[in-house]
């Protein structure tokens, strides 16, 4: 039996009205990559934050290297040799890469900072990780993926014996993930422990030795990775089995009318002469690597960013879209990939968010009609099964999946015919995912809506799309029908110019 590095027992944690952790348990050995999985809101991040001294636990014990420890601050965790890569990016955008990596442990010359040494050492560290980044570059000039790499380099620079990675792969490309896995294996071989949190269950067998599943703040069980299948993990996570059937054939007739026709759209840094069409009742997938320009294309189309050139036709009619309100007027809705940043006003109630897109409709004699707002909100809460105790609940108190459903509800209430779903399932769990899928299918098949779906999750695209556009570096590099598509083909197109 391997030696135990960390054991967390009977951990309890309460938030405002939420019993976030209830008898949570986790045990990690030396030299092990331990995967921690669970639905959104299962309490994974909370458990890890307790381990890192960010939250105070309300009960339970932490035994680290055979001794019971109290961890009250991140510094204490660091001094114990526990490092953490957070789910949300945690860099200081105005500081340079080197400054970020060495924050809190700056090389000094007397009382003064030794900037030269910091840059040299950061450069060495990055090279050793095969990351090509200028250590003197301010972090806010880097792409999200590179920022994520910096974050990883920073965590590794602590030489932690126990490293927690909370969804490190969520923003990385395939290549970068492989790089990351290399470091992880390296660390593991040195005898360090790694806790690896991810919603990408497919990557777990490749990297993890054992897995622990949590549900509703509780410990459900642990197993060796080789002894358990993905389906088993899923059923432990959700308490039921979910069966996914990939699509093999487009469900849209070829003569279905074109509702959206985009011609040679050019905008910003990364949208170069993008053309595509969308048919009624179709789900059009957009594939590509991180930074391929999909989000930028849709934001430009939606009027969120300025367009330089190109034409947009809605239902055959040429339209000028200069702002989101123009786009909405033409029946286009955009569900941002960044829920909290752009999708929702999380400080407001479910109700306020739901009618944000068309409050005009719910205004009578200059006054807003709260009664009708209440009715329509309740209707959609039922319709797409949003779990919320009331329409007055503040959105920030809902779990990620339910927040995503609010975003959907708000566009449905607006009754947009064209919906752009940008990474609709990013960071939400399998249960919520399958509900979003069902919803999208229902929207296209029953309500004749048309959907553009951007996703970095290839299986998801293959399962949902009728047709797939592939982008690379701001250009469309291919258009594939679902009946003829394979993952390899998409990858080839997505890396075409590289």
């Amino acid at each position, binding site marked *: 039996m391997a030696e135990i590095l960390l054991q967390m027992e009977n951990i309890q944690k309460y938030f*405002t009205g939420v*019993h976030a952790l209830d008898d949570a348990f986790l045990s990690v050995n030396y030299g092990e990559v331990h995967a921690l999985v669970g639905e959104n809101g299962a309490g994974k991040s909370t458990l890890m934050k307790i381990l890192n001294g960010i939250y105070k636990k309300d009960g339970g014990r932490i035994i680290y290297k055979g001794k019971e420890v109290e961890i009250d601050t991140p510094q204490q965790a660091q001094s114990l040799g526990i490092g953490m890569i957070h789910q949300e990016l945690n860099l200081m955008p105005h500081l340079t890469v080197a400054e970020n990596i060495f924050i809190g442990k700056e090389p000094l010359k007397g009382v003064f900072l030794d900037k030269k040494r910091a840059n040299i050492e950061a450069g060495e560290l990055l090279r050793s990780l095969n990351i090509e980044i200028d250590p003197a570059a301010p972090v806010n000039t880097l792409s999200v993926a590179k920022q994520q790499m910096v974050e990883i380099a920073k965590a590794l620079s602590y030489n932690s014996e126990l490293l927690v990675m909370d969804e490190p792969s969520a923003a990385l490309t395939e290549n970068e993930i492989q790089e990351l896995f290399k470091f992880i294996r390296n660390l593991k071989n040195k005898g360090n422990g790694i806790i690896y949190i991810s919603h990408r269950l497919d990557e777990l067998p490749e990297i993890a030795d054992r897995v622990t599943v949590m549900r509703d703040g509780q410990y459900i069980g642990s197993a060796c990775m080789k002894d358990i299948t993905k389906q088993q993990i899923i059923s432990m996570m959700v308490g039921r089995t979910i069966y996914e059937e990939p699509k093999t054939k487009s469900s849209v007739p070829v003569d279905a009318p074109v509702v959206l026709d985009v011609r040679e759209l050019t905008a910003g840094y990364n949208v170069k002469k993008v053309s595509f069409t969308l048919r009624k009742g179709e789900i059009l997938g957009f594939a590509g690597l991180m930074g391929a320009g999909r989000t930028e294309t849709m934001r430009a189309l939606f009027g969120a960013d300025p367009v330089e050139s190109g034409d947009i036709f809605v239902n055959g009619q040429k339209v000028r879209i200069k702002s989101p309100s123009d786009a909405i007027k033409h029946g286009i809705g955009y569900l*941002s990939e960044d829920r909290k940043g752009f999708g929702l006003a999380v400080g407001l109630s479910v109700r306020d968010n739901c009618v944000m*897109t068309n409050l005009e409709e719910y*205004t009578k004699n200059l006054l*807003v009609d709260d009664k009708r707002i209440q009715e329509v909100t309740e209707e959609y809460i039922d319709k797409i099964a949003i779990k919320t*105790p009331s329409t007055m609940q503040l959105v920030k108190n809902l*779990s990620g999946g339910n927040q995503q459903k609010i975003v959907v509800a708000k566009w449905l209430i607006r009754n947009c015919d064209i919906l752009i779903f940008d990474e609709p399932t990013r960071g939400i769990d399998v249960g919520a995912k399958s509900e979003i899928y069902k919803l999208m299918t229902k929207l296209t098949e029953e309500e004749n809506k048309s959907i553009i779906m951007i996703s970095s999750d290839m299986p998801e695209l293959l399962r949902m799309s009728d047709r797939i556009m592939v982008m690379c570096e701001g250009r469309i590099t291919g258009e594939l029908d679902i009946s003829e598509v394979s993952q390899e083909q998409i990858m080839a197109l997505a890396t075409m110019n590289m």
Partner: protein
Amino acid sequence: MENTTLNKAKKPSFGLHKLLALSVLVILYVFFSIFGNNFLSWDTLINILNASYYIGFMAIGVTFVIITGGIDLSLGTTLMTSALIGGAAYNMLGWSIAASLVLTILTATAFGILNGVMVAYLKLPPFIATLGSQMVGMGFGAIVTKVMTMRYPTVGTEDAWFKYVFYMTDPNSPIGRFPVGALWLLAAFLVASVLLNQTRFGRYTYAIGSNREAARLSGIKTRRWLALIYTLCGFFSGLAGIFFAAAYTTIIPGTGNGLELLAIAGVVIGGTSMSGGVGSLTGTMIGVFVMSVLKQGLMSMGLQGHWQTFFTGIVVIGAVLLDNYRIAAANRVKKPT
């Protein structure tokens, strides 16, 4: 699933704040009634009301701005500048008082538009934009009036109705001395409350304060609404200017800066958060009256002006501290045993 207790806890908690502010108000009132000299009198009540008008109007306007997460540092100077310009029309150009008042409002609204354009369209941080317009306004008022004090009609002169309508009724009238300003303030409060709570304008104010980008991507013309919100704030500064003129008669160029901080203090005492998305006008009104009661009360205890400044500072800090503490406590209480 998890948060069924939440909404019960969350919604009334805001009401709780107002309750708290209200009880502070009541406690202060009782305290001064006991320890002050002749505090519990009609005269003192009138003084309390009278001292609240101009701050009250500014505070109502800036509540909208603060709910958007912004700030308006130009309130005080806009009040003075608009009253100066109106006064200049009245004193120097011989306009009728009614026309001068319209000019006052227009001037203030113009400053509101200026602020709105700078914040919404030119994307200047509100602190800086309104700091700039504070200085510009103060200078402008002085330049236009050639640094001369402007005077509004006084009691006993021809246009005295101005005072009777906006400040205090004629003591020789059938109703005697009645603080009409209070009625105006009440009316403004009611109208503004409807605007904030029952109209799109108000909903968008909250939406912009909660997440401006999300609001924009929801098709709300955030720039236009934001500009309108600052304009409204300017308009209310103009109203404040009129009521200031009615109460104090004399408008001195180069003054007014600092008054905005009193209005903002009132808003903050009333529980509106500086980070936007949360706030109420009822709270603001309570906050304004807390300050007035404090002012008159300390005076009735024979403590002079600087004690008021001192205690107002304490109350501002205390109110927000208490609020933080209350929220923390509410969170803690929720833990089951």
